[in-house]
């Protein structure tokens, strides 16, 4: 099964590469859709770029899934997994190739529903059931907004094809807002991100990698296809998007720092990175509104590079988290620890992934973060009005702070999982995963290094997209000021010299200094809560952070017998906004349900009343 999948992914990559320089129209026979759906598939450089990315990530997931699913076959049915995965991939490929609205919506729904089934793979668990439900509700609401926008555009242009739609006149700005709303719900921008931390951890790890790596980028593809290729000139929509993305960036990484579970931490980090991509997209729209091609080029480069790099290192991180789950049978940071010595390959690749996501040179994360910074910096001195310039400069400061929080979160994830001593007995028995699971991790880690060093060449490959939008060639020459290959080589040689000179002999080993307290339990190391406690305390209003301390004993002050410390955090949006909203909908539904009494006399009277009302209306008209 996984071999078939791997073959399919490689074919995707090849297909993407073939369609790179020219637009290919795929004419499928119309009887395939039984006449209900006018299928129109088109592949240009933008679609080819995303298809190649999809092919690479899904190849890694295919190789990983083989052993992963056979190990979990008592909890997840392999047939369900592979069937839904095929439908998921088909949906994503059709979304990327769709050239008219109905094909797009059908493919979108195919993708969403199959991924919802995959989220509920372990459907015996209550957590999987609630997560799948929340995800389904979110994706249905997104589709409603998308369809509403598409219908309004169809009524204006009387054409379902994307190429005939143009968003330049003010009457198209309402459908543009609706479509954008649908897209950002699916992408996971604040305040619509709450489904992400529920859905991504519960899915099997390869599926989480595909969801975080590719599926949340498809709204970015759609936004590029519709708004950038469609000349959106709305003055206030980029600012709205910029505000929401800036809040997502900060909110995502703050919550990521405070998580106790490995995959939830990675899911919140996806929220942060999607915010970064949408910030670049807003800058692109701002640049086009101000007719400044320099800013537009840099922003487009930033969007595409960050989509690519984030897909690579996020899928790497999720696959490593899957390996940890496979070996240690837990994802709880308060039970993990010391896996670095037991799982060396996973440790090394997770370290590379963490360094990449923290945007540390010379990896690819730095190349993409640098492009975002360059776009914002050029806005700070290029845009005409001072308020926009001040906003962009302020965003540079915000991104600096967010980068420090990201370093903290990933040091926590890496350190608590792989360094130190194991915090529970089951984890000390963990062993390295089989080779078929190590290979995709290694391949993605190597890709992170290579895409960082060869970033300028990759950017020149994306020239056709920038030319098609009318922004000129991509500014790959700007990468000359960050010679990442040179940084990597110089650092590697310096490290080599230091190892040869200073670290010749192996060191003596002894126990860690314990200040005379003697042997303590394995759990008396740093925990997930204590590492993040200083920052959580600063942001108490946002996180609703409370620490309850209960000391009991004969003499509480001098000889305590029992000390209970309990930190608690609540998601503000879920309790204050979505909870009451869900309650309101439920109450309204209960009130309306009173109409269904089961009495046939009442139903007949409903029919009668409806008939009279319709006749009256018809007579009036």
């Amino acid at each position: 099964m996984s071999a078939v999948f791997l073959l399919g992914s490689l074919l995707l990559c090849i297909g993407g590469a073939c369609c790179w320089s020219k637009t290919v129209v795929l004419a499928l026979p119309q009887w395939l859709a039984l006449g209900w759906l006018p299928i129109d598939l088109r592949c240009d450089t933008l679609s080819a770029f995303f298809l190649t990315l999809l092919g690479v990530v899904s190849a890694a997931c295919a190789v990983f899934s083989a052993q992963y699913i056979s190990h979990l076959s008592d909890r997840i049915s392999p047939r369900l997994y592979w069937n839904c995965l095929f439908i998921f991939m088909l949906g994503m490929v059709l979304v990327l190739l769709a050239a008219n609205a109905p094909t797009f919506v059908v493919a979108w729904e195919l993708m969403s529903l199959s991924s919802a089934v995959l989220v509920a793979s372990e459907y015996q668990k209550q957590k999987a059931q609630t997560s799948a439900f929340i995800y389904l509700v979110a994706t249905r609401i997104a589709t409603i907004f998308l369809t509403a926008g598409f219908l309004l555009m169809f009524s204006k242009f009387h054409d379902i094809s994307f190429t005939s739609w143009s968003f330049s006149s003010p009457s198209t700005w309402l459908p543009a807002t609706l479509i954008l709303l649908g897209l950002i719900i699916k992408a996971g921008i604040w305040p619509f991100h709450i489904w992400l931390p529920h859905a991504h951890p519960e899915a099997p790890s390869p599926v989480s990698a595909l969801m975080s790596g590719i599926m949340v980028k498809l709204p970015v593809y759609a936004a590029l296809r519709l708004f950038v290729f469609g000349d959106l000139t709305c003055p206030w929509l980029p600012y709205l998007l910029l505000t929401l993305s800036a809040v997502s960036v900060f909110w995502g990484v703050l919550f990521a720092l405070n998580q106790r579970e490995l995959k939830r931490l990675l899911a919140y980090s996806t929220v942060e990175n999607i915010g970064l991509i949408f910030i670049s997209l807003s800058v692109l729209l701002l640049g086009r509104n101000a007719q400044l091609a320099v800013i537009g080029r840099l922003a487009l480069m930033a969007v595409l590079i960050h989509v690519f790099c984030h897909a690579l290192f996020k899928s790497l991180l999720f696959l490593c988290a899957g390996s940890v789950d496979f070996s240690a049978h837990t994802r709880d940071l308060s039970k993990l620890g010391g896996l670095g010595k037991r799982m060396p390959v996973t440790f090394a690749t997770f370290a590379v992934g963490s360094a990449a996501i923290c945007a540390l040179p010379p990896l690819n994360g730095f190349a993409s973060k640098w492009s975002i910074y360059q776009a914002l910096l050029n806005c700070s001195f290029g845009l005409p009005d001072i308020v926009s310039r001040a906003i962009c400069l302020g965003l540079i400061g915000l991104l600096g702070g967010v980068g420090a929080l990201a370093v903290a979160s990933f040091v926590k994830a890496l350190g608590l999982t792989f360094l130190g001593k194991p915090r529970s007995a089951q984890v000390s028995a963990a062993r390295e995963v089989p080779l078929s699971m190590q290979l995709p991790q290694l391949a993605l880690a190597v890709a992170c290094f290579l895409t960082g060093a060869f970033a300028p060449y990759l950017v020149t490959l994306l020239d056709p997209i920038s030319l098609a939008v009318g922004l000129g060639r991509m500014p790959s020459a700007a990468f000359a000021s960050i010679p990442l290959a040179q940084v990597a080589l110089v650092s590697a040689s310096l490290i080599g010299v230091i190892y040869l000179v200073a670290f010749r002999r192996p060191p003596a080993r002894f126990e860690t200094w314990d200040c005379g307290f003697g042997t303590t339990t394995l759990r008396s190391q740093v925990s997930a809560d204590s590492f993040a406690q200083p920052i959580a305390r600063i942001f108490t209003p946002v996180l609703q952070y409370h620490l309850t301390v209960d000391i009991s004993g004969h003499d509480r002050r001098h000889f305590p017998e029992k000390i209970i410390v309990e930190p608690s955090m609540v998601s503000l949006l879920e309790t204050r906004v979505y909870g009451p909203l869900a309650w309101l909908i439920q109450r309204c539904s209960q009130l309306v349900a009173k109409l269904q009494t089961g009495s046939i006399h009442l139903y007949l009277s409903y029919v009668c009343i409806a008939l009279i009302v319709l006749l009256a209306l018809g007579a009036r008209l």
Partner: protein
Amino acid sequence: MQEQIINIVVSVLSILIVPPLLIGTIRKTKARLQNRIGAPLWQPFIDMTKLFRKDETISKTASWAFRFSAATAMAISVYLAVTSPWTAPQLRLGPCDLFLFLYLLAAFRFLTLLLALDTSSPFGTFAASREATLSFLVEPAAVLSLAALAVAAHTSDLNLIFGAGAPHNGMLWVISGSAFLLAGLVDLSRMPIDDPTTHLELTMVHEALILEASGKNLALLEGATWLKFAVLLGVSAQCFLHAFPRLYANGSVVEAAASITMLLLLAVSLGTFESLTVKLHWRKAPEFIAYALTLAFIASIVALGAGAV
């Protein structure tokens, strides 16, 4: 060709000599203010050679990341020292982008935090969480103070910003320099955030991160930190010197003399400052960082308002 060789020789000498000299100056200043004679100015050299000769003992829990972090931290510091404009005339041994500079410092921090978490020692891990908090609070100030200069100069290449043809706005240089200096003090965990001479593990930030290191490992980490200190102090010194553009028209010898003098002056004033202040309570640390952030905001507003100047 000859100039390149002189460049390389000068850079190697400045990396080897200036950082320990600065640390020695600060310690000597503090000693004289406390009415002691104090250790000689070259004591840090002697300490470093002593550490290099000693054997190393590592915790049984530590992995390969322990030695790797020390070696890579030193490599990063050396790379920063040869490419960033912390002395004048500029060494120009490589391009130095503003964000590369800041993210190499972030990589340094990532590695030292990993080093602290590697040994499972509670002291190291608590220091790691304190260091993470401080870096988050101060990073916007550091970024904005340098980004303000970048906005005024319309480029993010530090060598171009600090170069001879840079536009002049004396007030902007002074404010940015002060903001960056205060942010650097917090990042290096110097007073009033953390006393570098304290040995109370529950309050140490930097010292507790490298608590488990010994021998050559400790020598590399200490050397890397001193080099980072020299680079950050040097960049602030260059900011202050750029407020007087006439210095930069008189040739490289005058520039070099002015840089060294400014560095030593900053070191002496830091030593005086450290003798006169007390270490702030942990919960009051954000108030000090707010000074750096306010100065950075003022610098940004000046840079935006000045327009193309």
